[in-house]
């Protein structure tokens, strides 16, 4: 769960051949949370929780971690100004105060945010946590040595773009003020009503300057959370966490911290993880995974086994896989062509290609089906479950191609990838019926991602997907459709290169809102408005199925992460 956005998910899916990591977890609006068997049992303190993961907790440094809501394992060690609400389902997609007394006090136009620390906050060594440490932690995230974190600080904080981190620039970042040890003030260069979401990220964790060892800090970070790092082997491959005696439940109403210690073993094959969790012998009975989904083949097995099925948690994560168009490339400059494709798409075969209806929901909206994003159902080009080739043909004829058309679809060649050949072939197969001949242009996945995120090489018709860094419409729609976020000389995510003044204006307007509920409604409306332009064809939202051990109690899967939250899990 280190990285959540598109590219990072691909990076996380490192090796070809090593099936890709589930990356995101899921939380479900429909049937969120864990299975019933475990929710009934009463959780108790004690024992050791084992976490079996595929991806190592690499770069376990608060500055380098790219997490959503502070991550799962990291959030056991790093407390941040705010954090996500540890609750099942939609409730779990809200921001909660953590180190701070509340989720933040905005100025009127949401450009200045002020936080106050709670009383009695201590590090693992007993020393007090101050806002200066939080400021230092934020500054560290700007150091080139500690690259890898999220870009928002750089984009939002005044002077962030030029700041080079505390090692090179001893003066510090002026836009983060600490008038006293308990107060911290952020000055933003534009209104950001969603700043409390940002403050959940690990870069908002305190780092005592005296204990900073630079790139080595990850080996022995100073804990502010309920657990401290006892062992960090092979760059996060094996982490052993033990209870931090200086953490106090009284200052933390989110983390439960039932187990006495937590052992995180990574680098395991996903099949092995699921195999071990399902067998559940010995220690594996007290094991969970935070990054491994049930695969299609395993699902086939689990579905036939009731006992096993009761140990599967379902999650939905805010993610959408879609067809993207670059309207600068012919014939996709013609909206009718794009619409014809939208009509022709067969979402059933597409969903089957990524593992079937248990692992993906058909999508017609760009925003995920969760209230916090502002989900508003719409389907501007109804294709039904299996596509509408007749309508598609008709629209294509209107576009001036009565005899069909030949186009090239760029996709990732990585097997079983959501942008992989199976999905591409499904699209190809469906469009054939509408008279659209699709040639497949498969690319190695690294080349693919470089190609589609560069405005000069971006193909006209390709598969891609997007997940937000926090459960809100802002990070979901902004990077993709905000015309100001078209990046000419770097990674560009505005695939459609949409620069619609009306859309831009609306985004700015919503960003000023600090009432997130009101904002969500407007994001939903904006989504619909953009959707009608047919610059994308949403295909599906992935669904996640997580297996957990026999002894696991108090399974909580929020709509924010979709993963079973290990700060809530009990093994006794």
């Amino acid at each position, binding site marked *: 769960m280190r990285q959540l956005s598109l590219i*990072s998910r691909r990076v996380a899916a490192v090796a*070809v051949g*090593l099936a890709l990591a589930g990356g995101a977890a899921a939380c479900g609006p429909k049937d969120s949370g864990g299975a019933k068997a475990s929710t009934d049992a009463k959780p108790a303190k004690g024992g050791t929780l084992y976490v079996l993961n595929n991806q190592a907790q690499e770069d376990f440094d608060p500055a380098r971690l790219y997490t959503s809501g502070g991550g799962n394992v990291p959030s056991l060690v790093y407390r941040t100004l705010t954090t996500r609400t540890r609750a099942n389902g939609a409730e779990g997609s809200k921001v909660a105060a953590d180190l701070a007394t509340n989720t933040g006090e905005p100025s009127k136009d949401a450009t200045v945010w002020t936080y106050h620390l709670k009383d009695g906050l201590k590090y693992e060594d007993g020393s007090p946590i101050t806002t200066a440490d939080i400021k230092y932690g934020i500054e560290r995230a700007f150091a*080139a040595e500690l*690259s890898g974190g999220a870009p928002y600080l750089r984009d939002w904080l005044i002077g962030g773009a030029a700041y080079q981190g505390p090692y090179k620039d001893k003066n510090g970042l002026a836009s983060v003020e600490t008038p006293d040890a308990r107060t911290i003030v952020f000055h933003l260069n534009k209104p950001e009503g969603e700043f409390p979401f940002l403050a959940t990220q690990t870069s908002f964790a305190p780092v005592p300057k005296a204990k900073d060892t630079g790139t080595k800090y990850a080996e022995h970070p100073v804990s502010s959370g309920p657990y401290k790092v006892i062992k960090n082997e*092979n760059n996060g*491959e094996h982490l052993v966490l033990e209870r931090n005696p200086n953490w106090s439940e009284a200052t933390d109403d989110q983390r439960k911290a039932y187990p006495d210690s937590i052992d995180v073993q990574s680098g395991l094959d996903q099949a092995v993880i699921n195999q071990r969790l399902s067998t559940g012998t010995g220690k594996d009975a007290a094991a969970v995974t935070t990054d491994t989904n049930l695969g299609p083949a395993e699902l086939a097995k689990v579905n036939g086994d009731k006992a096993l099925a009761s140990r599967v948690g379902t999650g939905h994560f805010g993610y959408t896989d879609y067809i993207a168009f670059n309207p600068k490339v012919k014939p996709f400059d013609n909206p009718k062509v794009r619409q014809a494709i939208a009509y022709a798409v067969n979402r059933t075969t597409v969903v089957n290609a990524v593992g079937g209806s248990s692992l993906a929901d058909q999508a017609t909206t760009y925003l995920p089906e969760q209230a916090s994003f502002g989900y508003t159902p719409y389907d501007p080009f109804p294709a039904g479950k299996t596509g509408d080739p007749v309508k598609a043909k008709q629209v294509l004829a209107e576009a001036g191609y009565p005899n069909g058309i030949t186009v090239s679809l760029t996709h990732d060649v990585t097997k079983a990838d959501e942008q992989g050949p199976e999905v591409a072939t499904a699209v190809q197969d469906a469009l054939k019926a509408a008279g659209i001949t699709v040639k497949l242009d498969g690319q190695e996945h690294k080349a693919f991602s470089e190609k589609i995120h560069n405005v000069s090489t971006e193909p006209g018709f390709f598969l891609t997907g997007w997940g937000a860094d926090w459960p809100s419409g802002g990070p979901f729609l902004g990077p993709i459709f905000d015309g100001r976020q078209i990046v000419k*000389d*770097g990674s560009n995510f505005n695939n459609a290169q949409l620069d619609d003044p009306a859309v831009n204006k609306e985004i700015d307007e919503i960003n000023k809102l600090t009432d997130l509920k009101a904002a969500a409604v407007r994001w939903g409306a904006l989504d619909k408005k953009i959707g009608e332009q047919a610059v994308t064809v949403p295909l599906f939202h992935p669904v996640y199925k997580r297996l957990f051990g026999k002894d696991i109690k108090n399974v909580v899967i929020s709509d924010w992460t979709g993963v079973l939250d290990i700060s809530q899990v009990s093994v006794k």
Partner: protein
Amino acid sequence: MIRFLLRRTVSAAVVLLVLAVVLYAVFYLAPGDPAQLSCGPKCSPAQLVQIREQMGLNDSVYVQFWHFLQGIVTGHDYSTGTGTVHCSAPCFGQSYRTGELVSDILVAKLPATASLAIGAMVLWLLLGIGTGVLSALRRGRPTERLLTGLTLAGTATPVFIIGILLLMLFCSVLQWLPYPSYVPFTDDPQQWAWNLLLPWLALALVESAKYARLTRSSMLETLAEDHIRTFRAYGVSERAIIGRHALRAALTPVIALSALDLGTMFGGALLTESLFNVPGLGQKLVQSVELKDLPVVVGIVLVMGFAVVIANAAADVLYALADRRVVLA
């Protein structure tokens, strides 16, 4: 002997240097920006510039390669931001992606690879020599034909097919073994062996076929030699001839070949490591190639190349020890 070692060292160094140059060349031709790799997604152009500077990527290829060579010979100091960390010689640099020292990665990944390679070798030698001897003893009989068929099938089977079939059989149908998941020897020797059993078996079945054929054919070749005729003409029994004279001669190439194979196994068992999830060098290499994490790739390949070179020299020495007629040169 000393001259032999000296010459071998020089030629090994040349081979490894060429390898490093080739890799550098290949990866510099490859599209992709290491800074991007380190920076992660949504990296701003300004940030990229800083990172390039920090990683020394603005230097020319030659300068970077020179620094790399320097690091191997003299070690290297890296800034941690707050201080420096010394990477002692031979220093292969830092991972572009995670900033880990490549030497640390190598040290971390080597035990799994070594466990896999050495265990498999023991098994394949036992299986291979046993089968070879048996088929030489039973030559011309149905047993030999059966064994010949089996070994032929063995040489023809890609290791991942055998691997999948083994998984199917032992983990799914019979459920005798857990789905293999590497446990370090130092943690639990029994679990270590138990979990490596299938990968060992998969490699050994494929490899032993080769050894069985080698053993059998060199035994048969030896059996056709004049000195065997001598011992026959002196009334030495067939069993003694096979067990003492033919096997002895057959062992020489077998030992030499197994040294070579052990060397290549250190880098060559990509598929086995990948299939059975053995967190070794091969697996790491595939991942790093995919990510174009050049320092890690170069480090691992050099270690593999080194292993092969050592194995080659070892094979020659073993050969010479086993067969005194051979002069080391």
